[in-house]
């Protein structure tokens, strides 16, 4: 009996062990299959991860942080999130991970990185082009103001404006070169605005050259000078400041024309000593200075200031337009040592030495000299009539 029980127990124990072994083998088989599929799955996700990482790296290297920061930061955030999801899934005991969310995040990250690169190229090219254009516009405005400054004497405060415009333009070029296109555009616009202010102030200075009443007065003076020459049969001299021209009339006809240098502030009508302006008015030659009697080769002294000049000086001083120490000035001449191609005198009219020789021989004490701005609207009138540049170029 005991032997039979023992045999039965022995047979049952064997079957249990076989059952356990079979179950373990089944689990191992299922686990192995799942692990195989899990590995394939993980490989596919790893490939997406590599692609997304490379895309984000490329976006950063292309300076997307400057030009498309939102897209880049979003791509990086999704990349981090996807990486974390992937790792959490792979760390699970069950070897078949759920990588759907990680895959989606990797794909979106890669797409956003590509978009960031695309936006970077577009925005940087646009900013570069805008900066170049702003610099070109500013350079034109500065150049225009420089030409004006050489044509029209600017007060020191206005010269300083022009200098600031030039400095701002140089700064813009440095910023552009360093790739800071936004600041370059701002500097260039500041330069343009400063240069335009100079142009606008210069336009105020030359407003008289567009004034119909002033031009009419100048035309009348010219006509009267020519008529006098015709009537008296004697020479008369006409000085036209804008044209930089001295015309000798004999018996009412043009006898000779000379090219002249004027005062450095020739545009203005002379008001006081040292202002550099060539006066406008009707004068006469009161002295002839031959060689040796003047440092300017030869000279014809005019009777500046005349009564009208004195009246204007008194008015200006009374109105506080002049400092108390200002003097009316004098010694306005037509002299030699000219022909320099620029306006350099303190108000005199300078001819070349051969020309002053010629004029000297043809005129005498008492010859009328009429000095006008221009007998017709010219370039200065056009400048004065131009709308303010600051309004022109602001879009």
């Amino acid at each position: 009996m005991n032997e039979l029980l023992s045999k039965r127990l022995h047979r049952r124990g064997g079957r249990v062990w076989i059952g356990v072994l079979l179950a373990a083998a089944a689990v191992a088989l299922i686990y192995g299959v799942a692990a195989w599929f899990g590995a394939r799955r993980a490989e596919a996700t790893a490939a997406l991860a590599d692609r997304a990482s490379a895309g984000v790296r490329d976006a950063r290297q292309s300076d997307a942080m400057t030009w498309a920061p939102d897209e880049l930061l979003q791509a990086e955030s999704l990349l981090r999130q996807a990486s974390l999801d992937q790792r959490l899934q792979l760390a699970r005991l069950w070897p078949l991970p759920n990588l759907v969310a990680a895959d989606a995040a990797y794909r979106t990250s890669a797409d956003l990185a590509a978009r960031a690169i695309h936006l970077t190229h577009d925005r940087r090219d646009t900013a570069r082009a805008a900066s170049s254009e702003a610099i070109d516009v500013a350079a034109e405005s500065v150049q225009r103001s420089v030409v004006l400054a050489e044509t029209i004497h600017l007060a020191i405060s206005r010269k300083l404006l022009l200098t600031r415009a030039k400095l701002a333009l140089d700064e813009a070029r440095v910023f552009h070169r360093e790739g800071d296109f936004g600041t370059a555009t701002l500097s260039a616009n500041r330069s343009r605005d400063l240069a335009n202010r100079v142009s606008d102030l210069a336009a105020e200075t030359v407003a008289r050259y567009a004034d119909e009443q002033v031009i009419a007065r100048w035309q009348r003076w010219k006509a009267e000078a020519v008529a006098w020459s015709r009537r008296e049969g004697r020479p008369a001299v006409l000085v036209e400041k804008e044209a930089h021209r001295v015309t000798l009339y004999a018996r009412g006809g043009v006898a000779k024309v000379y090219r002249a240098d004027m005062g450095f502030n020739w545009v203005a009508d002379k008001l006081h000593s040292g202002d550099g302006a060539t006066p406008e008015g009707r004068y006469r030659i009161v002295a002839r200075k031959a060689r040796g009697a003047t440092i300017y080769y030869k000279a014809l002294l005019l009777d500046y200031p005349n009564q009208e000049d004195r009246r204007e000086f008194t008015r200006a001083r009374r109105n506080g337009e002049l400092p108390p120490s200002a003097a009316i000035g004098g010694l306005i001449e037509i002299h030699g040592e000219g022909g320099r191609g620029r306006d350099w005198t303190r108000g005199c009219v300078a001819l070349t030495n051969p020309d002053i020789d010629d004029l000297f021989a043809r005129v005498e004490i008492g010859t009328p000299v009429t000095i006008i701005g221009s007998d017709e609207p010219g370039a200065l009138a056009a400048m004065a009539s131009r709308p303010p540049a600051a309004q022109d170029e602001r879009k």
Partner: protein
Amino acid sequence: MRKMWLVGVLAVGLAVVAAGCAAPPQADIDAVKVSADKAATAGAAEYAADSLKAAQDAQAALEAELKVQADKFTLFRSYTKATELAGAAKTAAEKAEQDAVAGKEKAKNEATALIEEAKTALTAAQEMLAKAPKGKGTAADLEAMKADLAGAEISINDANTAMGAERYLEAKAKAEAAKNVAGTVSAAVLAAFDARKGR
């Protein structure tokens, strides 16, 4: 009975050891944060963007590892890798800080050098202008050049102000512009001297 008692003691011991090993390396994590803050304060975003990005990536890897371990059952957690990552993140942050300091110093030195060059050019131009030939018809030109040098001086002062605010690119731009203007004036005065010699 004795065997049961021994098994129980062993199980408790194992649990205690597992709990001890499962603690995140908090001191190392805190050290990473301190280093990252120092890098940010040193201006790494502006002067060491690449190094800062590497430090940020290292910190993200640490945080990811901590999260992975936190999600595991206590007995299966291991923070050995997290400790290594914390060390790497701290090193990367320290490098970002060093690179930022070096980058800022480089930008500052470049701007300082350019300002000195501008000052030298301005002084030279002022001295030349003082000796410029004066004579018939030079008053207006001299006045224009004086205005240019006055503007250059203002620009150099603005450059120094920008230096004080650590805006080194702006300082460089203003100094370079001032240097150019001073150079132009010097060239103009030299040309006037040459013209005078040529007479």
